[in-house]
């Protein structure tokens, strides 16, 4: 089995389990919906204010959902005691990280899409900029998922990881969230493409750095 198929199968297995169980995804989406309602109540009802807040709301909500879902990548492995089986498979361990990253990314994209349409409906986020927003969503999710998967793996066997994970995760991914918010806001305001491209380039740089560094460091922190 080549490395790529291994990564792909691991992600597919986790995604199947997740969709079959449904509890994690449903809880995350429901949490987001409640959060959007509260934010809408707090910021509304002026339509202009809501539209201005929409990009920030979208990304903050996605970041929260991301930290809720981050534990899922290794949660089942720890619950079912299958993490050791994964570690026993011969060869490098980087592939475990990339498989989990792919799974985390897919989850985040599913939730992101739902969230995008919820924000569009509740916060008047104009969908005319949809292609650009989707690009931002993918780039931002890769950056977010890369770090969250890494930390989730590192803290997997720890008690109190649910509280610890967002604490270490958020400061590191703030640049990603910031660049994503700015890119989305530029798109919504209809700024020239050059300005949006600058933020995309920055996101891409983050993605490449985080994915490579986390992949390299992962085998070290997993053993513990």
């Amino acid at each position, binding site marked *: 089995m080549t490395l790529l198929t291994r990564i792909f199968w691991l992600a597919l297995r986790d995604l199947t389990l997740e969709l079959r169980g449904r509890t994690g995804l449903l809880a995350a989406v429901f949490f987001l919906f409640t959060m959007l309602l509260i934010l809408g109540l707090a910021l509304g009802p002026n339509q202009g204010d809501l539209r201005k807040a929409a990009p920030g709301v979208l990304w903050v909500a996605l970041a929260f959902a991301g930290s809720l879902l981050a534990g899922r990548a290794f949660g089942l492995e720890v619950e079912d005691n299958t993490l050791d089986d994964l570690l026993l498979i011969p060869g490098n361990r980087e592939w475990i990280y990339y498989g989990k990253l792919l799974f985390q990314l897919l989850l985040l994209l599913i939730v992101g899409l739902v969230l995008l349409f919820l924000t569009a409906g509740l916060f008047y986020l104009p969908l005319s900029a949809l292609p650009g927003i989707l690009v931002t969503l993918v780039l931002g999710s890769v950056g977010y998922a890369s770090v969250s998967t890494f930390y989730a793996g*590192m803290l997997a066997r720890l008690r109190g990881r649910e509280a610890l994970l967002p604490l*270490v995760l958020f400061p*590191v991914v703030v*640049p990603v969230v910031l660049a994503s918010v700015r890119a989305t806001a530029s798109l919504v305001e209809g700024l020239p493409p050059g300005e949006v491209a600058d933020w995309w380039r920055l996101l891409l740089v983050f993605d490449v750095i985080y994915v490579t560094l986390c992949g390299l460091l992962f085998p*070290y*922190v997993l053993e513990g």
Partner: protein
Amino acid sequence: MSQSKRMDILSLTSLSLGLLSLGIGAFLAFTAPPATEQGHVYRIIFLHVPSAWVGMVSLFVAVVYSILYLARGKARYDRMATVVIEVALLFLSLTLISGMLWGRPTWGVYWTWEPRLTTFAILLVVYIGYFVVRSAIEDPELRAKASAAISILGAINVPITYMSVKWWRSLHQTQTFDLTTGRSNFDPAMLPALLVNILALSLLFFAFVRIRGLLAERESAKQELSPQAG
């Protein structure tokens, strides 16, 4: 107690040399010509820029120790990385405070959500998180590995903070020394005071790290003798 566990000549020399050059630096800073626009207020730069430089560069020193720990697995490297980050946080806090004191008379506010200030605040939070994680993990090996990972990932914020004034031009002035072009944006008449202060703070940093490292070594030795005591 063995010789290695006492304060050595190197620490004492760099401590006294650091204090001496800090005095010389202060003298040069106060005798440098006043700035054309800011008058005497600008003199805070002689503390602000050196502490920022020493603090941020030392985060890369911590990265080196973190990588060494991951590669060799010796507890000493983990201890040194932590000590370096501890002292670096001290210098970075000094940067933040001096920057705020400088911001009030020149910008009218202590704090503003401006790219350099925001990225710098994020940098501080990452390294404060470093110590939160350390206190939360009991298993020493995992603690050391997790710390090393946070230190390596967190250092990505250093170049972002450094370049932020160039990428998003706003209130904060550009770098004093631009590493991308190798040029200094500083008046030659004011340069000696700045360079002497950078030297002074570097020497002090070195001394602090050595002294704190010694303390950390003693602490861990004590803990090994009686684990309950710690």
